[in-house]
């Protein structure tokens, strides 16, 4: 197609093209930008490899027609992201009929209509609606899982860092360090997948862009100067205390609230009287305590679900800031 209204001249090298694409995507979701840069680089490098006789500038000029100029590509990714987000979003409880085919490119209008029917919900409905929000359970599961992943990430970073740094006096330390830095990047993607699946925060699906025109020594150098490497390690170290805290909060609150809710059942089935014990003396005995216990348990349970969802959102934001940076 035609490519008029190009504000800027076409780039002549692949890093320049990617730089323009990044500039054109400024302000968009960083995770999406990372994916877009990865896709573009794959296409450009493949095209360059297919046509060995032609120069980089020539190939890019041809690509502007087939793949798109940076501005056009940015526009396409912005549009697709909006459409896909609408299509993949789970319909919220109490909102219009919005079940959509999982793969749908032209569904923007249907979902826009569904979103328009959304009506403001009462405070009570919002309080209890948390039960129907899949992200609540995702967050709850993430809180339980984070103990395991937190311990693993922390151990990996501390072991890897101390092992490779102390081995640096021998020559074997260098490959060990490089392997370790590479593994941190892979783990960062893995954690991103977990977070996107459980907490619903968009995270990158492709590794971050690296400038391949530089020599391998320069690329190793950028691994150290790249803020992402260190922020990712900081995140992994932070995951230990956070994971322990999340796990403790989730298990404590869940077991307390469930115990309160099912206390009358224990009374009936297992002869465990409901009551408030102080120094082994039941100071509040009697049937009136049954409904009180159940109601208190339910309120605590719903509070726990709200807390889990809030922690999920907060943690998603933290992860996005530490793991995804351009």
């Amino acid at each position, binding site marked *: *197609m035609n490519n008029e209204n190009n504000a800027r001249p076409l780039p002549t090298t692949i890093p320049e093209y990617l730089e323009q694409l990044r500039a054109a995507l400024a302000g968009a979701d960083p995770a999406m930008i990372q*994916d*877009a840069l*990865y*896709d*573009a*680089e*794959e*296409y*450009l*490098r*493949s*095209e*360059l*490899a297919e046509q060995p006789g032609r120069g980089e500038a020539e190939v890019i000029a041809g690509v502007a027609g*087939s*793949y*798109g100029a940076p501005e*056009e*590509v940015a526009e*396409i*990714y912005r549009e*697709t*992201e909006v459409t*896909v987000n609408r299509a*993949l979003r789970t319909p919220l409880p109490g909102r219009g009929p919005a079940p959509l085919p*999982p*793969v749908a*490119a*032209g569904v923007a209008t249907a979902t826009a209509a569904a979103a328009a029917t959304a009506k403001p919900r009462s405070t009570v409905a919002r309080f209890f609606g948390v039960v129907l929000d899949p992200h609540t359970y995702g967050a709850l599961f993430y809180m339980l899982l984070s103990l395991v992943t937190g311990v693993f990430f922390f151990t990996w970073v501390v072991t890897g860092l101390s092992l490779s740094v102390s081995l640096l006096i021998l020559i074997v330390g260098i490959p060990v360090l490089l392997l370790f830095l590479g593994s941190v990047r892979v783990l960062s993607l893995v954690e991103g997948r977990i977070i996107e699946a459980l907490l619903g925060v968009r995270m990158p*699906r*492709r*590794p971050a*862009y*690296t400038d*391949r025109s530089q020599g391998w020594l320069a690329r190793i150098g950028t691994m150290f100067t790249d803020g992402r490497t260190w922020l990712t390690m900081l995140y992994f170290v932070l995951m230990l205390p956070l994971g322990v805290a999340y796990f403790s909060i989730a298990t404590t609150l869940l077991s307390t609230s469930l115990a309160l809710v099912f206390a009358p059942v224990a009374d009936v089935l297992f002869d465990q009287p409901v009551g408030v014990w102080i120094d082994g003396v039941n100071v509040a005995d009697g049937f009136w305590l049954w409904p009180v216990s159940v109601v208190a348990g339910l309120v605590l349970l719903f509070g726990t679900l709200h807390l889990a969802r809030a922690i999920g959102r907060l943690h998603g934001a933290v992860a996005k800031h530490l793991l995804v940076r351009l």
Partner: protein
Amino acid sequence: MGDFEAQLRKFQKELSAGTVSLALLAVLAKAREPLYGYLIAKELERTGDGVLSGKQSALYPVLRNLEGAGLLESHVEPSVAGPPRRYYRINDEGRAVLTQWIAAWNATRDSLESVLEGVER
């Protein structure tokens, strides 16, 4: 004049938005081996004869979505030329979906043709 052209472009965009998933599934169903994004784009450009070739950058997000929907499977292989490539392969569910989509497409095409019949050109 420019107005007509803009409308034509908008129409072409909407058409390709509706059909690109079908085209991608078909390309991968015909392929004997897993393909990566660039090869899929080129294959579509070659056989689609330019009609489906809107900007090829639009294909990558759709490939990711098809994979997310469980219709494609993928693996990564390192490459000499650039970043590691993600190779896509259609799975059984993808083939089943493709069969249904082809039927839906045929029905759409037939009914559209009968509607368009007799229109003066």
